[in-house]
């Protein structure tokens, strides 16, 4: 059993939870994730570790189905039955020069530890974040506090410039900024657009994939994805991959595998989607 210390709504449909998990917190590094299971009937779902303080871990989740909905019902002082990790490779953080960190939607929370780590390693970090509107623009203050250049886009123009993160990145590149690495995390379509954008410029681009997982340790192969000419397991080979090699069409198709089941489960539980 793991104690839930906090669970709060930070944006429409987006929650931040802090869980006491000292072993995991002591080892977790930027880019890694964990598996969580609420109780004996719960499923195992992966969540990126957004922050740690050595004893506790912070996760940020968007309500998308039964499990994330049930997570919202957990109150401080209650417990979740299982938390395990840290899983996946940590981000290979080193001094590169200029690193552009791009985050979209709930992926912005996942971007935070990575941007923080690149900054600490002495890189010139440019952060670009985007969401549908300003209410959904999470972690803006935390990212601003890193002291890096922060650029914002919203679909409706309610914060930053009206448009997409890709537009900002393209302008940066075209303005002649010498970018050594682009790191993108967010919805599949966003990571695809960013990867397609940087490819002709030959800018190395890492994406952090959010595939379906069961165990998270290489056992089931549910998270497999074509990268270049090979099939990789996102859980043990990733979750970060070279964005120019990822088959995004396959990623999006595989994410739809349980859509009907999820809808059905939400419907009978009276959870509106």
């Amino acid at each position, binding site marked *: 059993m793991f104690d839930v210390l906090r669970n709060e709504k930070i944006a429409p449909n987006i929650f931040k939870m802090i869980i006491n998990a000292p*072993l*995991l917190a002591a*080892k977790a590094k930027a880019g890694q994730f964990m598996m969580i*299971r609420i109780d004996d*009937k*719960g*499923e*195992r779902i992966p969540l990126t570790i957004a922050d740690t303080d050595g004893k506790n871990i912070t996760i940020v989740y968007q309500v998308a189905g*039964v*499990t994330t909905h*049930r997570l919202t019902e957990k109150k401080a002082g209650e417990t979740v*039955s*299982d*938390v*395990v*990790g*840290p*899983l996946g490779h940590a981000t290979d953080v080193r001094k590169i020069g200029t690193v552009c960190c791009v985050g979209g939607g709930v992926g912005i929370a996942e971007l935070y530890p990575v941007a923080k780590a690149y900054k600490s390693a002495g890189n010139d970090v440019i952060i670009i974040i985007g969401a549908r509107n300003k209410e959904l623009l999470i972690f803006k203050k935390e990212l601003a506090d890193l002291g890096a250049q922060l650029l914002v886009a919203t679909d409706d123009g309610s914060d930053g410039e009206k448009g997409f993160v890709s537009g900002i990145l393209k302008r940066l590149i075209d303005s002649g900024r010498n970018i050594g690495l682009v790191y993108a995390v967010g919805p599949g379509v966003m990571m695809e657009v960013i990867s397609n954008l940087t490819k002709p410029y030959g800018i190395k681009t890492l994406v952090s994939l959010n595939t379906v997982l*069961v*165990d998270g*340790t*290489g*056992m*089931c*192969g*549910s998270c*497999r*994805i*074509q990268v270049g000419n090979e*099939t990789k*397991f996102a859980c*043990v080979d990733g979750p970060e991959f070279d964005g120019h090699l990822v088959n995004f*069409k*396959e990623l999006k*198709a*595989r994410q*739809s*595998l*349980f859509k*009907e*089941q*999820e809808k*059905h*489960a939400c419907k*009978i*539980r009276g959870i509106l989607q």
Partner: protein
Amino acid sequence: MKKQTPDERKKNFNEVAFGLSEEEALKESSRCISCKKAKCSMNCPVEIDIPGFISAIKNKDFGKAIRIIKEKNNLPGVCGRVCPQENQCEGACILNAKKAPINIGGLERFVADWELRNTASAANHRPLASKQAKVAVIGSGPAGLTCAGDLARMGYRVTVFEALHVAGGVLMYGIPEFRLPKEIVQKEVRYLESLGVEIKTNFIVGKTSLLKDLFEQGYKAVFAGTGAGLPSFMKIPGENLNRVYSSNELLTRVNLMKAYLFPEYDTPVNIGKKVAVIGGGNTAMDSARVSLRLGAEKVYIVYRRTENEMPARKEERENAKEEGVEFRMLTLPVKISGDENGFVKSMECVKMELGEPDDSGRRRPVAIKGSEFTMDVDTVIVAVGQSPNPVFLKATPELALDKWSKIIIDPKTQASNIKGVYAGGDATEGDDTVIAAMGAGKRAAKAISEYLKNEN
């Protein structure tokens, strides 16, 4: 042994075989002639005194029977159900001459279940830890649990680290409920806990802690029973389509996460109406039978050799056939095709014929030119084997591995190249059954005890 009828059982996940009644067990035990030189015991990987426990059954002393078994085997309820007895104890029984070997597996299961019903006897055990040395066991599958149990009996303080949320390893995620009820596994795990074994779930050695951390925390020896948790695929086009599963994924969803009870349980599984299971082992049979129970109308076993070369137990092949699984032998899938949404629509195969024997001694299947054909299926389960789970191995580069990434060990002691680190089960070469893994766990426990005596 009595079973649920095929028509009945293919609609539920309840155990297929009912087990022997007391009357049946007494009758069966009375047939044993108690050989002086018991070939059955000699062919048991954990050397159970088989004539001894059968004699106790004859005398209706079931408590004594289970004690005799447990001197050598900590998981009798499991072994009575899933051991390939036909190749081991029962295969060596002298009564094979009359084509009527003793049903040793059935008798083992009978006394194990008898004890599990009488939970008081398990509660009588008290933790034994009398020695100071702490031993870490990585993985709570059959190898790890056996090693842990034997070490606890010797008085060591044992901690088992399990990556999943529940102990049992492949016994929980791999073998279906209808062959091995999960309650039986959990009762056997609790028995080990009653011996003083501490089990830490949600703990991945290689991630949550490293091997060196365990030694720093005072563990004097380590047994790695990290299992075969990395499924192989065939590397054919279309394998990443939706509704192509590894057998591991299908079985984990259904057995460990109870997807067959979705939506009461939260984990879903998405199976179509026509399922092809590729492979010829027990895992393939399990996957086929699980698919039927999930509501598939047609289930095929697709195997590139013939039934004679299949590694699956005869009993499991027969169970599958009785339930309506169709065998498509000498058939090799070459491509899986999908619809516009990325879901399986059909599978292209070629017909094979058997040629010259290969390295395994089995005749090598060769494709027949021009024999391509299409199977109308909407789900494909790939059950073509697996390699060792990489998490612990990658995090422990100093551990010597063979070219299949299996941990190299001394077969007598299960010792790896690292001092104080032992390994067995599917993480090493050859231990491909539950009982073989248990045998490795036993050898390792003995060797670890010797090692610790010499260290002090």
